[in-house]
């Protein structure tokens, strides 16, 4: 597997080419990462959440946040009709204002990819599909790879995979690493291009900040294009400290290897205020380079309605209400 890792990192590996040569070397590297100062991290995340953003800056932030949304529906009760309705909303979030920006992507289960792809034809809105036995990730590797390949074949532009938390927590880092590498391989299309790979850690199940940092480096070493906090299916989802920690890992990885990786907090981000806190965090940690839908996304469903209501408030001067946005 070491050769794959070297390929993933390329020439600009920053001396990390051999990290995944063996279970022992990978463990040595991940456990050699500096420990996380939990109190400092939480204080930093909290202080970045206190900025007051008003008027034109707020309008800019709202439009930026809308353009970064992965509009998500991941319910067992999803229907073709619901996915089409969501795609319509993605194309035209605010029917009363054609100037409202479009969202970045639609995020669905693999069997809905074809539906979403057809409904979004002619736009640059991406179709993201969760895969690898989302959300638990408890399936055999061939099943996970088939799940991924199926979604890619159906036209998915992006794949959101979940890592095997059981393997990660019991210290089998190389298994997790190899799985990510294999899924990345399964993202390749016949024409040589590949679907973007987002790796979900389910940080609510990783127990410690140190584990989040290790998982971040592990996924980036294995070739993740994006690292994502959560599935949205467990009690604890994206939190500001965890996201800040992942942003810092991404920054350090870029500094060491020159490879830029995106970040996607998901789950529990419901209000405009929350979204703006995350944007401040990105700007302060990573800078302008990441403040585009290409490198930062929100995994959310109800967030869009709140952003639209705030947007309407800024344009009309009147507070809007849930009667003036769609029911999803």
């Amino acid at each position, binding site marked *: 597997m070491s050769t794959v890792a070297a390929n993933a990192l390329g020439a600009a590996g920053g001396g990390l080419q051999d990290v995944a040569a063996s279970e022992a070397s990978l463990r040595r590297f991940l456990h050699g990462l500096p420990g996380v100062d939990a109190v400092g991290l939480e204080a930093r995340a909290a202080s970045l959440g206190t900025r007051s953003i008003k008027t034109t800056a707020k309008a800019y932030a709202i439009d930026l946040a809308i353009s970064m949304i992965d509009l998500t529906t991941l319910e067992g009760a999803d229907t073709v009709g619901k996915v089409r309705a969501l795609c319509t909303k993605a194309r035209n979030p605010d029917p009363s204002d054609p100037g409202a920006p479009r969202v970045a992507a639609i995020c669905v289960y693999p069997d809905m990819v074809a539906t979403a792809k057809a409904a979004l034809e002619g736009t640059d809105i991406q179709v993201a599909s969760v895969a690898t036995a989302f959300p638990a990730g408890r399936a055999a590797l061939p099943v996970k790879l088939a799940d991924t390949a199926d979604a890619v074949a159906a036209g998915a532009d992006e794949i959101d995979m979940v890592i095997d938390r059981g393997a990660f927590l019991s210290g089998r880092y190389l298994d997790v690493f190899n799985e990510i590498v294999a899924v990345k391989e399964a993202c390749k299309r016949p024409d040589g291009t590949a679907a973007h790979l987002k790796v979900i850690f389910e940080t609510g199940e990783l127990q410690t900040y140190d584990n989040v940092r290790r998982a971040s480096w592990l996924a980036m070493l294995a070739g993740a294009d994006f690292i994502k906090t959560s599935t949205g299916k467990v009690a604890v989802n994206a939190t500001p400290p965890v996201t800040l920690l992942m942003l810092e890992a991404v920054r350090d990885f870029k500094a060491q290897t020159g490879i830029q990786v995106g970040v996607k907090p998901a789950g529990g981000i419901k209000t405009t205020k929350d979204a703006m806190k995350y944007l401040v965090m990105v700007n302060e940690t990573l800078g302008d380079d990441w403040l585009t839908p290409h490198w930062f996304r929100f995994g959310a469903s109800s967030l869009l309605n709140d952003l639209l209501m705030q947007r309407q408030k800024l344009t009309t*001067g*009147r*507070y*809007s*209400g*849930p*009667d003036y946005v769609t029911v999803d």
Partner: protein
Amino acid sequence: MSDIASRLDAPARIQVSKTYKLYVGGKFPRSESGRVYEVTDSKGQWLANAPLGTRKDARDAVVAARAAVKGWSGTTAYNRGQVLYRVAEMLQGRREQFAAEVATAEGISGKKAAALVDAAIDRWVWYAGWTDKVAQIAGGANPVAGPYFNLSTPEPSGVVGVVAPQSGYGFSFLGLVSAIAPVIATGNTVVVAAAADAPLPALSLGEVLATSDLPGGVVNVISGRTADIAPTLASHQDVNGLDLSGAIAAEGPGSATELEAAAADTLKRVIRPALDQAALDWTNAPGTERLLSFLETKTVWHPMGI
């Protein structure tokens, strides 16, 4: 020595003064602005600091009121009546406090103020009785030319903004109760902009409501400048009705005319203020106008069979 000893025997007690707070969503937040303003009695003597509620506080209150609509409008009319009666019981226990606040707010004698508070409690009980009777007078079976049952029932309209009365005999508490009770009796939830110069009875009412069985968010009380809060409620797209009892009748910004125009944008039901509010006497029998103002009529057609 004896002088010092006598002083020690009877230490001067430090008055515990009350921090009045807003009542939003069943909780007692300070204003989002962090600011307060001085409330004086009718002669200009300082009474207390009241929170200076802002547009944002009003917005938060509307969110809380909206969240409470489903539960409150879904309770049975009988249950709503019991809850409102319970509020009257709680008011009875704090009669003296309200009497003192009404006396200072309106500059009337303690005896008159106590009578006004009694009248307010009685009125609350009166409206509690109306909860399961309003459907009979506002709805019913309609005769139609066909084999159908045709039934109309009144339903609450949702969130109602109330600009509390600011003048007239008994405005500070009896007037306030006369504005709030009929709106919630029919299953609506309210956001109250308390009388700017006499907000203390309204803020204390919040404390009573919090300790009765009324679910949080059904009544929300904001004190502050009426000119800040009333236009926010009038233009808010998630407010379904507007009681302008305390809005200034004169022309100009924040006037009743302007508020009504803003409310018309979203087709709110509106109660207009009296032309001469100062001449009002809130002890007069209220009638059913306020009960029926914020209702939507739902009509159901049902086939009668062969």
